[in-house]
């Protein structure tokens, strides 16, 4: 047997070896004992089909590759691609996308708008973490801690002092930034793996602290009935609290719960756009360049008179502030927060968004947030295999695009001629 055939046979066998135990065998209880059942004929057929396909794919890998290389023509005619890459075209494209994002929820379904709001929260978180991990190169596994600080600051201020969402938003951001600064100090001398471990611990400390501070935070039960944001003082609930007016009464509309959902979406969109704008400007400011320089070479930074301490702390602080904003919005949207909303898996998802999007890339973060949140929602029916698919997606990404979906583009700076 020659080599391609042998390889192809081996691949086909591998399909069976992997797929049969996972899909083909089912465990069932019969009384107190476990029984192993075989799979249905259709499942076996599917596995057989997959193995045949892989067999053919490996067998004809070489001619297929030649075929692909042979058709070297560009997909898009050059004139069109020139037009598409013009800065003015791209600016108008961006404006159109933003306009679309503002308009569609008025026509979209309630569930879709709700999911989009969740995506926007993760966009904010991803953008914030991108400062720390993508730009400054400091691997932070406890980012969810700042998210929790933001959420609890709003929840507690609203619960005990009766403050509204809009007053609390900047306070939550500042408090999270303060925690970012506090975490920054002890980890100044750490890098890489060591930094990751310490920040991981920090995230867990905040969660466990919140869970055990029962007298103030309600412990594992969390805080419920958190007020929703108001529209210039108008409540979007069916009935307003004493003395307040509701949105639908003021405008003489019938009460519609969709108003609230759309309003929350619009707030999230606004916050995400502000975050996008601010970080985009930061990137082109001396501090943004210093973050990247720190990621590239800390010693060279010092030799040029850049103070690494200030740069690191500013990255931690600003990154945490965005998590604080996202957190207080999250609390307002959910109306109920518990420490279990802020487990390590959240940090992992946010980090996955940053890595998947392409470290340092803003648009990459947006795209990756959509992928990471939308895919599980769309694949609810396969929810048993959700983690399997998640893992498969990660493996495929690392094989095909290790630099991320939309890797960071270096800014092209025009010189005077």
């Amino acid at each position, binding site marked *: 047997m020659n080599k391609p055939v042998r390889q192809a046979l081996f691949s086909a066998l591998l399909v069976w070896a992997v797929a049969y135990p996972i899909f083909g065998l089912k465990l069932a209880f019969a009384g107190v004992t476990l029984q192993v059942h075989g799979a249905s004929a259709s499942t076996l057929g599917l596995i057989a089909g997959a193995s045949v396909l892989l067999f053919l794919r490996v067998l004809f890998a070489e001619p297929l590759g030649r075929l692909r290389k042979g058709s070297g023509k560009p997909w898009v005619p050059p004139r069109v691609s020139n037009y598409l890459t013009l800065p003015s075209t791209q600016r108008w494209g961006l404006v159109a996308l933003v306009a679309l994002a503002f308009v569609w929820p008025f026509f979209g379904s309630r569930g879709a708008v709700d999911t989009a709001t969740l995506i926007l929260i993760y966009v904010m978180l991803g953008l914030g973490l991108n400062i720390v991990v993508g730009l400054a190169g400091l691997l932070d596994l406890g980012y969810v801690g700042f998210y929790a600080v933001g959420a609890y600051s709003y929840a507690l201020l609203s619960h005990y002092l009766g403050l509204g969402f809009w007053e609390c938003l900047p306070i939550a951001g500042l408090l999270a930034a303060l925690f970012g600064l506090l975490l920054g100090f002890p980890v100044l001398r750490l890098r890489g793996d060591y930094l990751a471990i310490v920040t991981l611990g920090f995230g867990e400390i905040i969660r466990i602290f919140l869970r055990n501070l029962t007298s103030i935070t309600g412990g594992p039960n969390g805080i419920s009935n958190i007020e929703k944001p108001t529209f210039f003082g108008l409540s979007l609930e069916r009935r307003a609290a004493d003395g307040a007016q509701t949105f639908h009464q003021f405008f003489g509309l019938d009460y519609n719960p969709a108003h609230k959902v759309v309003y929350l979406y619009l707030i999230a969109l606004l916050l995400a756009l502000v975050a996008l704008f*601010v970080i985009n*400007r*930061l990137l*082109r*400011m*001396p*501090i943004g*360049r*210093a973050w*990247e*320089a720190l990621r*590239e*070479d800390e*010693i*060279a*930074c*010092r*030799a*040029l*008179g*850049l*103070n*690494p301490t200030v740069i690191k702390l500013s990255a931690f602080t600003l990154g945490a502030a965005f998590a604080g904003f996202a957190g207080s919005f999250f609390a307002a949207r959910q109306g109920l927060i518990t420490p279990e909303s802020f487990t390590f898996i959240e940090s992992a998802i946010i980090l996955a968004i940053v890595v998947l999007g392409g470290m340092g890339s803003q648009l990459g973060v947006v795209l990756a947030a959509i992928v990471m949140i939308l895919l599980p929602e769309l694949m609810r029916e396969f929810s048993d295999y959700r983690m399997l698919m998640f893992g498969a997606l990660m493996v495929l990404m690392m094989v095909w695009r290790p630099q991320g979906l939309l890797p960071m583009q*270096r*800014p*092209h*700076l025009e*010189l*005077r001629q």
Partner: protein
Amino acid sequence: MSQNNLLEVSGLSMRFGGLLAVNGVGMAVKEKQVVSMIGPNGAGKTTVFNCLTGFYRPTGGTILLAGEPIQGLPGHTIARKGVVRTFQNVRLFKDMTAVENLLIAQHQHLNTGFFAGLFKTPSFRRSEREAMAYAEHWLERVDLKAFANRPAGTLAYGQQRRLEIARCMMTRPRILMLDEPAAGLNPRETDDLKALIGVLREEYGTTVLLIEHDMKLVMSISDHIVVINQGSPLADGTPEQVRGNPAVIKAYLGEA
């Protein structure tokens, strides 16, 4: 020693545990001089550099920059006072473009206000424009203008060396310290380097402190040479004095 020394080092020593890497090194550098430090491999030349630039905290001795003691200060503080260095193995920000490398180094001369940058105020725009103009000036000087938007890590070795010197010049240094700038350069590039160091001194009034093994280069551009062997000062003088010094010849070539 006289008062008009820009840099004055005396009795500098650096001990790592039981190892005395630098022992009682002294030197005096006047404004606009080119001073070289030579010595066999492992003599402690780079350790002296690390002490002068604050990467190590010297265990003894004094370092005066224009009469002000700077020994033991953190590296970035010393750099802000105008003592800037290059590295033996080039340390550029490799993923960033050449011009970005130059912009980073100008942080002291830029408008770093948060809100100024956020809203792109006129003063922010002006300071960025000036930084770009200065970066462009130096890219032209070191013949890298065509590579301005290339990631620094993709440049050829000689180009990276030139970019690193240009990046130091962005900080408007008083003393530029070059750690083996000619290592890995071909003879033509070494000649260019020699011309560049001349330009630094004549046009920009920069004082240059040099570690170098290329004796032809050292002898032709130095005003003063300090020889170090096994951490201790061996000789000190003009190129002619050092060239004829029997102790130096012995250290380099072994016993006759």
